[in-house]
């Protein structure tokens, strides 16, 4: 059986990639994907814990995260479309109206 540390290492790697992507990338769609990546890293770790501990609590948590992620995807894509309509680009650096 694959030890839980493997899952957790993978989850940490995925989460870090996600954080870096959010922090570095300018394309909002990529940022959006990175957020999904972070959510799924958390999901992975929860499933892993669930199996190690031997009850279903972690898996129920994952369901909640997936539901929220679905809602977030709908709203997030809506925001991206609105952003594209107003700035004609997908660069997040273009959306700095409040700073000016």
């Amino acid at each position: 059986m694959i030890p839980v540390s493997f899952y957790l290492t993978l989850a940490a790697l995925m989460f870090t990639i996600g954080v870096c992507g959010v922090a570095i990338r300018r394309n909002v769609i990529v940022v959006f994907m990175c957020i999904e990546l972070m959510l799924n890293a958390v999901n992975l770790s929860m499933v892993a814990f669930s199996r190690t501990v031997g009850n279903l609590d972690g898996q129920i948590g994952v369901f909640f995260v997936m539901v929220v992620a679905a809602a977030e995807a709908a709203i997030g894509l809506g925001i991206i479309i609105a952003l594209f309509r107003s700035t004609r680009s997908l660069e997040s650096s273009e959306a700095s109206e409040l700073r000016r």
Partner: protein
Amino acid sequence: MERTNAALALIPLFPLVGSVAAFLVGRVHKRAAGIIASLASILAFVWTAKLFAAMSAETVLEDVVFSWFGVASLQVDFTLRMDALGAVMCLVVTGIGSLIHIYSTAYMAEDDSVHRFFSYLNLFMFSMLLLVLGGNLLVLFVGWEGVGLCSYLLIGFWFRTIDYAAAGRKAFVVNRIGDAGFLLGIFLLWMNFGTVDFLELEAAIAGNMTLVGLCTVVALCLFIGATGKSAQIPLFVWLPDAMAGPTPVSALIHAATMVTAGIYMMARMDFVFALAPFTLAIVTIVALLTAFVAATTALLQNDIKKVLAYSTVSQLGFMFLAASAGAYWVAIFHVVTHAFFKACLFLGAGSVIHGCHHEQDMRHMGGLSRYMPITFATYLVATLAIAGIFPFAGYQSKHAILGALEHNVNPYIAPYNSWIVALVTFTAFLTAFYMTRSLAMTFFGKYRGHAHPHESPAAMSGVLVALAVLSLFGGWFLETRLPNFLEHVLAVAPGHASETIVESLLHSWVGIAGVVLGLLFYTSLAGVPGLVFSLFKPIGVLFQRKWFVDELYQAILVRPLEGVSRGLWKAVDQGFIDGAVNGSGAVIDTSGQVLRLTQSGQVRHYALWMFVATIAIVVFFLVRS
């Protein structure tokens, strides 16, 4: 004393309504303002006269208009009360006031804001009537403040001239200083007796020798109030400047209203003053000094209104002298006769100024008796009256004042009675002299101006004639009637033996001497005044420059006050308060400038911040546990 209810409120109500109506209607129709205001004033007079005719010397008419306010144990009603003293004052205020209103309709006809003028004039009468009719100290005080306000409004009536506006302010400020003293007096009385009603106070105080100490202080406070309103040393400086107002206003202030308020108040509070011989001694000295200083100042003034102004200050000194000797009825007698002849003099001066096209300097007048005979005749009568020559009105009252001073029983003053009488007699001589000087410079000799003098319209000369008649017969008429009428309200000494005409003429030697000398100096011996002036140059300059009182106040009060104000302005206001306000603004501004560096406007930066912060929080809790 019988107290009867009567519609006293109507007396002040007429001028109050008139004031509003004159303003509103006068804005549309200029001529209507004067007519409305005069009508209101005359109605007030008629109503006063009607009540007066029905009352006896012992009647006290009372009218509780409404319950004013109650604080703790103090319950104050808006009470109006008219006894013999109030009736006399009311008749003077409304009677002389009405004449001045009628005169003003002609005098002010060409002014652009007559509606304002007549509105203020009526308001002035309203305030004065409240003052005179007030049944307690607080109603009196409302009137007291009211006349102060109206004097400010009317003295600064032509406020477009900076000096005139300043004169109005001066009157108001100086009056306020006196009012502060008066208020303290009221507080003291209320604190000790729990009431401000005149009758209740009199019942509590009159004749109670244990209250001498308290009464001395209270009387002193009240007298400070009186020095402000009635222009005594040290607060008389506003009255000469009050000449900035239109001439009828001067007449109203000097004759019928305002300045007599102090005398009236002293007579009304005689039961307090009776227990304060020390205060009365101070009053005597102040009044004596005022009478003398003002009379000497009047000697060398060239502005016809300034002469009259200082003569008013001087005559007010005479009234206070009488009051301080305990002869309150004599003071009131002089108030009344003074109202007659001073109104006549002021309105006469107004007529001269009107006729000479707003020339006030007597050096540019002269010979006017040819051009304006009615004004001349009335001015002559009033001059003889103020000079105190039998049978004119001033003789009887001045003679009574001298009589009262001779028999002054005040323990502090009595040893010096003969000196005081001598100085007062000399002041009376000066009065006759400077008034004759103004008469001669204005009406005798050759005309020295460049205008074309003309007699004033009938509304003005008619009023002058009426006042001249009063100045001629008023004293003789009131000499015995007034004390008989007032004896239930004020202490009246047993009447002096009646004199023959020859005796009376002999007694008016002071006035006659002053008039004769004045006539000689300013007609046939025209060089003498200049010679005398150069002989006594320092004294002359002292008189001419009004004893340097204004300069003195400027140096010891106004300048230091200005300096302190300037210091407070620069150091405290601009330095400290503005510094604190601007400083706190600057702190917020600077911290904002620093903090705004963290705001890039880039979403990913904010996300990074969030991440870093989350890590920090997690690390914090991990380390702590």
